C-alpha cells in the first residue's frame, strides 16, 4: 500500500474514533439551555437572622425545563437551623427544582443525611426511587424502597 493511501486510511480511522467518542459524550449531555455551577439560596430566616439561609441548592449543571422547573444534575440540597448549624443534606445525580411550587424532587437515586445535634444522632437514608422535598414546611419524602441508618448512642436510659 502506498504511503498516501496509508495516510488516508489512518485519517479515516482517527475520524471514526473521534465520531464515536463525540457520540458517547453527546449522549450524556442534557439538551437545551444548560449552565454549569448552579448555586442558589432558596429561603432565608426572618430577622434578626435574615442573612442566614434556611435552605440552599447547588448543582454541577442546570437546565431550564418547562413549567417553572429547573433540571439539576449532580444536585445537593442543604438546609440549616436558625443558628447556622446544618440540618440536612440531600444529594442526587438528577433532580427537579420547581421554583413556583417551591419543591425539589427526583425519580432516581438519593442520599439524605439529617443531623440531630441535641441528641447526637445522625440519620442517613438511601433510596433508589426518588424523593420529594417541600420548602415551605420542611417536609421530605423518600419513595418506595429505602434504607435508614441511625447512628449515635441511644440516650433513652431509664435512670437519668
Amino acid at each position, binding site marked *: 500500500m502506498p504511503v498516501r493511501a496509508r495516510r488516508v486510511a489512518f485519517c479515516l480511522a482517527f475520524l471514526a474514533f473521534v465520531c464515536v467518542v463525540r457520540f458517547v459524550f453527546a449522549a450524556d449531555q442534557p439538551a437545551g439551555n444548560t449552565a454549569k455551577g448552579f448555586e442558589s439560596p432558596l429561603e432565608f430566616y426572618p430577622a434578626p437572622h435574615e442573612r442566614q439561609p434556611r435552605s440552599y441548592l447547588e448543582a454541577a449543571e442546570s437546565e431550564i425545563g418547562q413549567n417553572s422547573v429547573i433540571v439539576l444534575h449532580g444536585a445537593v440540597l442543604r438546609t440549616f437551623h436558625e443558628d447556622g448549624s446544618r440540618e440536612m443534606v440531600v444529594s442526587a445525580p438528577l433532580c427537579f427544582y420547581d421554583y413556583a411550587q417551591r419543591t425539589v424532587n427526583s425519580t*432516581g437515586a*438519593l442520599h439524605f443525611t439529617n443531623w440531630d445535634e441535641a441528641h447526637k444522632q445522625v440519620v442517613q437514608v438511601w433510596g433508589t426511587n426518588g424523593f420529594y422535598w417541600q420548602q415551605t*414546611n420542611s417536609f421530605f419524602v423518600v419513595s418506595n424502597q429505602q434504607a435508614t441508618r441511625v447512628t449515635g448512642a*441511644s440516650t433513652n436510659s431509664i435512670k437519668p
Partner: protein
Amino acid sequence: MKPFIAICLSLIAGVFLFAQAHAQTSPGELPALGTPSTNDTVILSDHGMEAHLKDKTYIYRGNVRVFNPQMTLTSELLTIEAPDVTEGKYNHVVALTNVVVHWWDEHGTNQATADRVDYTYALTNLAKLPEKHYQTNSTIVLTGNGHLDMGGKKLDGDLITWDRVTDVVKVPDMKRTAISGSNVFDNATSPKTNSHPK
C-alpha cells in the same frame, strides 16, 4: 489490512468509553446495611419514608424492618416522634399492623406481637428551674391481640402495658397466661394485674 485494524480498534475504544461513561452514571443501589454490629439502628421499608423535619417525626410504610443490636421489629407502619423539648426528653414510637418485636436480655430471647405497639419515653423535670428533679417514664403498650413472651412467661390480652421503670406488666383484660409453660390460666381465673416475675 492495517487501516481496517485501526478502525476496529477505534470502535472498540469507543464502545469501551461508552460503557464506562454509562457505568459511572447508573443509578445508585441501596447499601446492604444488614444487621448493625454497632449501636446503630437500621430501618428498611418498601413504601418509603416521610420526614417531618420541624416536628422531628419520621414515618415508614410497607414491610418495615428495624434492626438494632438489642432488638428487631417488623410492622407495616412505623412512626417515630422525637421532638425538641425545652427540658428533658420525649420519644414516642408507634408500630402498626402485624407488629412483631424480638429483644434479648437476661431471660434470653423475648417476643411481643400485637396489632399496635406504642413505646413512650419521657424524661421530665418535676422541679422549677434552676432546680432539677427528673422523673423517667418508659412504657410499652401492646394493643389488639397482644402477646408477650418473656423468658417462658406468656401473656395474652387486648391491652398489655409494661412499665419499664418499675418492670410491672398490667393486663386488664387478660385472655391467657402461662408461666414457665406449665401453669395456664384462662380469663375467668386470672388476676387483673400481673407483676412481671423477676
